């Protein structure tokens, strides 16, 4: 990092080590998942074994949004915010709360997708800050999403869909009238609205990544539409 002022270099090193820590944690998670599968030859119970680590990571990912807000990372706050929110939602409000669905295949699907995506992303950030970015990592970051995104969305949607009957039966997180706050909330219908919201949100995130890809990998100059 020649030609960078001392304070800048200092903060770069700090960020760099932070990303490396995130990267290695996801790697640890991935390895834990693989080891479990190889040992038990089944995916049942996999979620339970990694649950605590996963919950910790995803919550810590809130830091990411803070980064974008302060401007350390160049992705937009809204895009990252939506991603982090949906991940936290999935972990805390669906898979953690509804034990019966923890052995569904769709859970494994999105877990694998998230793990692969995050490993790529954090190694990209780390190497980027070190100014020694191997091309294959850049290639991976801007190409893998084409398969990972749709697969991840499919995993998440299938999981929510599988959770619906249990939500209906237990009436969890719901509040009925009359009550002294004069408000009601039906978690079942809320989940349906969440599923529907993927329809406008997913294409926006996907095309955002496609635009980034054209800019970074293909060197196209894209005139941003203002306002």
């Amino acid at each position, binding site marked *: 990092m020649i030609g960078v002022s001392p304070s800048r270099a200092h903060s770069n090193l700090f960020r760099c080590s932070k990303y490396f820590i995130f990267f290695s944690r996801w790697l640890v998670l991935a390895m834990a998942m693989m080891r479990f599968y190889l040992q038990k030859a089944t995916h049942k119970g996999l979620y339970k074994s990694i649950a605590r680590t996963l919950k910790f990571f995803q919550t810590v990912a809130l830091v990411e949004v803070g980064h974008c807000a302060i401007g350390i990372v160049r992705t937009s706050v809204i895009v990252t915010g939506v991603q982090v929110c949906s991940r936290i939602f999935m972990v805390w409000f669906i898979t953690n709360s509804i034990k019966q669905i923890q052995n569904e295949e769709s859970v494994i699907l999105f877990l694998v997708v998230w793990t692969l995506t995050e490993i790529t992303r954090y190694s990209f950030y780390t190497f980027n800050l070190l100014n020694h970015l191997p091309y294959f990592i850049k290639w991976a970051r801007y190409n893998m999403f084409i398969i990972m995104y749709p697969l991840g969305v499919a995993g998440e949607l299938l999981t929510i869909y599988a959770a619906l009957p249990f939500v209906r039966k237990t009436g969890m997180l719901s509040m009925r*009238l*009359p009550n*002294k*706050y*004069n*408000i*009601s909330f039906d978690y079942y219908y809320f989940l349906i609205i969440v599923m529907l919201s993927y329809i406008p949100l997913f294409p926006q995130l996907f095309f955002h990544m496609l635009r980034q890809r054209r800019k970074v990998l293909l060197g196209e100059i894209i*005139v941003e539409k*203002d*306002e």
Partner: protein
Amino acid sequence: MTSQGSRKAVVFFEVEILDAKTKDKLCFLDKVRPLHKYYPQWYAARQSIRLDPKGKSLKDEDVLQHLPVGTTATFYFRDLGAQISWVTVFLTEYGGPLLLYLMFYFRVPFIYAPKYDFTTSKHWVVHLACMCHSFHYLKRLLETLFVHRFSHGTMPLRNIFKNCTYYWGFAAWMAYYINHPLYTPPTIYGEQQVRIALVIFLFCQVGNFSIHIALRNLRPPGSKTRKIPYPTKNPFTWIFLLVSCPNYTYELGSWFGFTLMTQCLPVAFFTAVGFIQMTVWAKGKHRSYLKEFRDYPPLRSPILPFVL
């Protein structure tokens, strides 16, 4: 933007107008004709003319002679998008809540269970809430028509969809619960709570109206002058001593009163969101007052005395 002929010597200006993004030359005026004669779809309210592509727009009152340009003036044009008048937006966004709330109050079919259609609530606080809510929006409509003096004639068209979704959505959400057959009147302090809430609400409504009148009187009809507002003989305006935007302060107070009156969480959410938005606006207004007037009273806060 106007061009005056000088009395002493005749000064000719040549004006070229470029697109701010692509730098294409849109027109070259050696006789000054309005831009929209060349491009009829870009009527005056949509035009943003500026000296620098990323700079601020010039105002209608700016005179060509007084701008820092040579004899060939280069301006940059930006299309602001389809525009709609402020009055239209206000009437639509306030008319909606007024009507929607009444629909819920009269329990129009398909909202609640059929056995409740066209019934009325047995709680007197529900009737009171309907009167207050309707009064509030009626007041806003009348102020839009007769009191407010707007600096800009128009705003971008997409704002009407955004604003109406906000106002209409929240109004429907609040009205649904307040007028629900299973509504629970305030339990914490009962009737006393409702009475105090009503006093707060009315006090703030009168206050808000007084501020609007005071602000209107600052500005002669048809002009766009800006002056520092000061307390008048009306005691409700004495809050100007402590606050830059007391209209927002009173508005917050009104909704706080309404929340207390109905003890309804959706109303609390609406008050909170409104508070955040109004604080943002108040801070902006306060900052522009400070920038524009050297002698601006230092004791004033944007929206809450001493606090915010």
